[in-house]
C-alpha cells in the first residue's frame, strides 16, 4: 500500500486495521535523517562483520567479495559502526546539502 496517510479511505483499511504486508515499513527512507555518513576504507577492512552486527537499522549489506556496505537509503548516521570497527577503517563524513 503506497498511499499517503491523508489519502487513506475506509475501504483501504483491512478489518481491525490488520496489516497483511510484512515489512512494508521498509519503504520509509530513514536515511533522510542523517547529517553524516560512514565511509569504509576497504584497504583496511578485515571483513569481521561487526559493522553489520552492531547497526541498529540492520542496513549493512555484505557484498559478493565479503566486504560490508551500509545502505544509504536507511543509514541514520549514528556512527556506531565507525566507533566499533576494530580496524578503525570507517570514517564519518558530513553530509553535503541535497
Amino acid at each position, binding site marked *: 500500500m503506497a498511499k499517503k496517510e491523508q489519502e*487513506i479511505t475506509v475501504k483501504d483499511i483491512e*478489518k*481491525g486495521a490488520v496489516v497483511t504486508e510484512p515489512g512494508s515499513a521498509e519503504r520509509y527512507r530513514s536515511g533522510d535523517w542523517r547529517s553524516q555518513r560512514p565511509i569504509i576504507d576497504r584497504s583496511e577492512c578485515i571483513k569481521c562483520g561487526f559493522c553489520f552486527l552492531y547497526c541498529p537499522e540492520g542496513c549493512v549489506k555484505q557484498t559478493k567479495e565479503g566486504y560490508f556496505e551500509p545502505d544509504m537509503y536507511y543509514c541514520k548516521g549514528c556512527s556506531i559502526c565507525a566507533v566499533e570497527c576494530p580496524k578503525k577503517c570507517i570514517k564519518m563524513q558530513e553530509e553535503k546539502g541535497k
Partner: protein
Amino acid sequence: MHQNAGGEGKIAKRVGLEVSIAVAEAVKLADVDVVAAYPITPQTHIVEHLAELVANGELDAAYVPVESEHSAMSASLGAAAAGARAFTATAGQGLELMHEVLYAVSGMRLPIVMAVVNRALSAPISIWGDHSDVMSVRDAGWIQIFVENGQEAVDNVICAFRIAEDKDVLIPTMVNLDGFHLSHVIEPVTMPDEAGVGKFLPPLSYPFALRPDKPVTMGGFAPPGIYTEVKKGQEDALENSKKIVLKAWQEYGDIFGRYYHPVEHYRTEGMKTLLLTMGSYSETASLTIDRMRDKGMDVGLIRLRLWRPFPFDEIMQAVKGVDTLIVLDRAISFGGQGGPVGSELRSALYNLPKRPKVIDFIAGLGGRDVSPDDFENIVKRGMEMSRTDSIPAFQMYGVKE
C-alpha cells in the same frame, strides 16, 4: 412463552438447572477452545463448572486461570488472535477492570463471546444485580444481548458464537444475564442437542490468525489521518451486524424452535401505553401486565433484547401509535438526563413526527427486587404523569427517604 422443540424433530428433555451451570453447558456445546477467566460473584458458578468440565475431559479446552479480569480479556484476546474460539465471563467490578481491553478487542475485530452476569458497581460494594456494569460499556463496540431466563441464556450464548464469528461480523459479543436473579436460580431448560448445535454453529475460521506462514501485524498505531477511518469501518460493521443477528436468530429458531427478536412484545397489540424492561424482571413485569389488563387497564410490555447495535427500526415499529412509553432502567447515569435506556430511547425517538412521551423510572438497583406491585405502581404513576406537562428526566422508584 416459547415452543420447546428438540433438535431434529426429537422431543428434548427439559431439566432443572442452575442458570450459571446451564450457561457453562452451553459453552461446552459450543466446543470452545480457550477459557481464560477470573472468578467474581455472581459469575463464579459459570467459571467453576467450566473448570470441572475441562478437568473431567468433557470439554477439550485450555483453561487459563488468569490473575485478574484485565488479564482474562487479554488472554482471550490473544487466544482469539491465534484463531481459537475463546469464551470468558465476568460481572460488575470485573467488567470495569477489563474496560480498556474491551475496546481493544472490538477495535481489533476479534470474535470473543462473554457472559456478563450483571452486578452493581462499587462504591459501596454490592454483589447483587443491576445493569450498571454493562451500561458503562455501551460504547465499547461490542454486540450486546440481554436475556430474561435460563433458556434464553443458553440459547443466546450459542447464538453469540454464531454471530460474532460470522466473517462479515467479526465483532465480540456480550450476553447479559442478571446477577443472582438469573445466575443463581434453578430454571427449566431444554439443552440443545450436539447435532443441532453442530448444524447451527460452523467451526471458527478467523481470517487473520497469527501464524508464521502468513505474517500479519495486529494493533499498529493509527495517526490522526487514519484513526477516524478505522472507527467508521468499525461502526459500519456493527450496524451491518444486525442483519446477521436476525439471520442467526432465525436459523436457531428453525432448528430448535425458539425464536428471538431485537424487541420482544407482550400483549402490545393496540396499546397506547407500553412498559419497557430489559433482563429478568421482564418476566415479573409480564405478570403485572396480565393483572392490569384483567383490571381493565390498557398497557402492554416490550422487552429490549438487542441493546447494541441499537434496534432503531424495531423500536420505531413498537411505539407506532403509542402515547406513553414507561421505561424501567436498572442503572443510574449520575448527573445525566435519565437512566441509560430512557435517555437513549428519548434520543432515538426525538426526530419522529409523532412520538410517545418517555417516562423514565430507575428501579432494582443493587439487587433490590421489583415486585408485581412495584410494577403496577410504576405503570400507574407513569400513566398519571403522562397526563401532565411536567415529566421529570427520570425518577428513582422506591427510595426510602
